[in-house]
């Protein structure tokens, strides 16, 4: 099954061989490093610092002058009802998407792992959305969910319900956006889980059977889940990171609407920076976003490290 575990193994588990300097030409080293590090410095490191710097100014895009406002942008954001709404929406969206994606992916992986013969078929089907361009599929979903001409409305009417305006109902729109994201990424998390499942040695299940584990629940609680623990933690963190990066569907389908009901932080960042041209303020949002993602990614790296060094041999 999947390459995820393999890649991890390639990445870090393989024992490093003796590393020795082959030749001393220091200029060659520098030449080899230069192109990559010029790009990293110019397009990643310096801009990240620049963002932090800009976040302390009142700069607007295109303006020739700006003044330092200290934490002004941050204080403004905190005081702004709109930004607070955006935060709340982001939180709501993630509280739906993260557990739902995680649990659905886990359930799918467990189910598929046990269907030995058809596993490749199911895996292919559920992974298919991962390969798609979300923006294009968002437009498709728009027409699947269309309250008048969509399949869902048609099914609902057939069952005797009223059609629902999924993308224009301010109490539903976040969940609709969340569902589309789930649809796209659940196969991805599922594949990670499947890799974890297939790396559990079958002798453990056999030992458990001989030791008296009679039903699937015992096997799950005493072998599968604890053995999957590191993978699960790893998948969970990835789910969180990916969920916080939801943007495309909101941008193309709702633009934050209706009535700011689907306004989420990344969309606010885009609007402030590139529509309203309040660059300083956008930079402050970007910085806040950075801090959250940084914490998550650092945690993820720790988890990854644990995952690699887990197990007996």
């Amino acid at each position, binding site marked *: 099954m999947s390459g995820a575990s393999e890649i991890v193994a390639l990445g870090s588990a393989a024992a490093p061989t003796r590393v020795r300097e082959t030749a001393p030409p220091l200029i060659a080293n520098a030449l080899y490093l230069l192109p990559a590090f010029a790009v990293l410095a110019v397009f990643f490191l310096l801009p990240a610092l620049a963002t932090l710097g800009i976040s302390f100014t009142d700069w607007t895009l295109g303006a020739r002058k700006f003044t330092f406002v200290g934490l002004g942008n941050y204080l403004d954001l905190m005081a702004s009802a709109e930004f607070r709404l955006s935060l709340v929406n982001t939180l709501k969206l993630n509280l739906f998407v993260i557990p739902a994606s995680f649990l659905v992916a886990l359930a799918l992986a467990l189910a598929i792992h046990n269907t030995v013969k058809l596993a490749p078929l199911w895996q292919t089907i559920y992974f298919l959305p991962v390969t798609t361009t979300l923006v294009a599929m968002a437009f498709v979903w728009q027409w699947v969910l269309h309250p008048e001409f969509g399949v869902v409305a048609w099914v609902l009417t057939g069952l005797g319900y009223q059609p629902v305006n999924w993308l224009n109902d301010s109490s539903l729109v976040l969940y609709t956006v969340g569902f589309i994201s789930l649809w796209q990424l659940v196969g991805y998390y599922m594949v990670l889980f499947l890799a974890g499942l297939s790396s559990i*040695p079958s*002798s*453990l299940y*056999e*030992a*458990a*059977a*001989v*030791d*008296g*584990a*009679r039903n699937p*629940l*015992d096997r799950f*609680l*005493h*072998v599968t889940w*604890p*053995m999957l*623990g590191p993978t699960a933690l790893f998948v969970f963190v990835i789910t969180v990171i990916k969920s916080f990066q939801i943007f495309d569907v909101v941008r193309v389908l709702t633009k934050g609407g209706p009535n700011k009901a689907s306004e989420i932080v990344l969309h606010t960042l885009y609007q402030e920076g590139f529509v309203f041209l309040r660059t300083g303020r956008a930079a402050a949002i970007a910085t806040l976003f950075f801090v959250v993602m940084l914490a998550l990614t650092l945690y993820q790296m720790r988890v990854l490290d644990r995952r690699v060094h*887990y*197990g*007996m041999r």
Partner: protein
Amino acid sequence: MAGLTIRRAQKSFGTTAAVHEFSLDIADGEFVTLLGPSGCGKTTLLRLIAGLETLSGGEIVLDGRPIHDLPPPARNIAMVFQSYALYPHKTVAANIAFPLLMQAALPLRLPGLRRFVPGRAALDRRIADRVAPIARMLQIEHLLARKPAQLSGGQRQRVALARAMVREPRLFLMDEPLSNLDAKLRGSTRADIIDLHRRLKATFVYVTHDQGEAMTMSDRIVLMHEGRVQQIGKPLELYANPANLFVAEFIGQPMINLLPLQFVGGVAQLAGQAIRNLPPCLDDVALPHEEARIGLRPEAFALAELGDPQALMGRIHLIEHLGNETHIRISLPGAEITVRASSSAAHGLSVGQPLAVRPNWSSALVFDKHGNRARSAALQAAA
């Protein structure tokens, strides 16, 4: 009658048969080893007994009760896996206690939640009382709080044994339990397992590909090859009286010497040398066969004077000094043989030197061209 009976057990994977019509009676308390090269079906057979594989045909009866349709937990059989299969997330104590925990009611089996279930403390005490003496016996008491990853190979092996013992099963299955240990540890653990078998008075079915292990540990050996039994018997029986060439070659280290026997004009030629005075018993057995091979163990030779009419003549090809004894490889015209000699007898020999060895005909084994034992007509009549 207690014990394990296997009748006409069969197992095939797709079209390939892993075990052919296997039958065996194992007495209560016996130590039986399934021996054979990899792929011979010995592990499959063990897994059939454990219930990890389902029979394609035949039956398995334990203590008078057919068990082949029961799931593994219901068979009350313990197994020690080749990889030990310890639960890496559980402590040593929890690993050993696991089979007992699985006998508890469902709420008590739930990790985490079980602490809120009444009766948990009493159960845990009972379990601890069962685990403690076993841990003491195997000298792993000081490791109970550790995780498997923190143990050495030998310690893991003991934990696996302890986990197998905790339910006090009547039957222990062991799948190459020593193969992951280094040579030194293997020797001492071998003795420990023999000792354990004596103390527990339980039935052991032990799988190995190492004939030395099988010879030293077992009451009886079942030697298998390509899913079929080659011979069942006591270790020395297999050594001294192998049923066929496969058994003769598999058992014994260094390997048995096989010398081609031909009759040219009524004169026996062994490995290309005319043999006068071939003992009549051998003559009788070998004569009906055009091609036969005589099997002689390395110790069935004595160093002889050059020119001894009863000896085989050759040239020393290699000398291996093992300290207590010496193995001498000798090139004969039609074969190469290994002779075991005492160090003192071999003293002063050197490679390239001619050497005469005298076979001890009374222990010679005769094989026909199909590799089966050729027995004398008299013996066959008696049997």
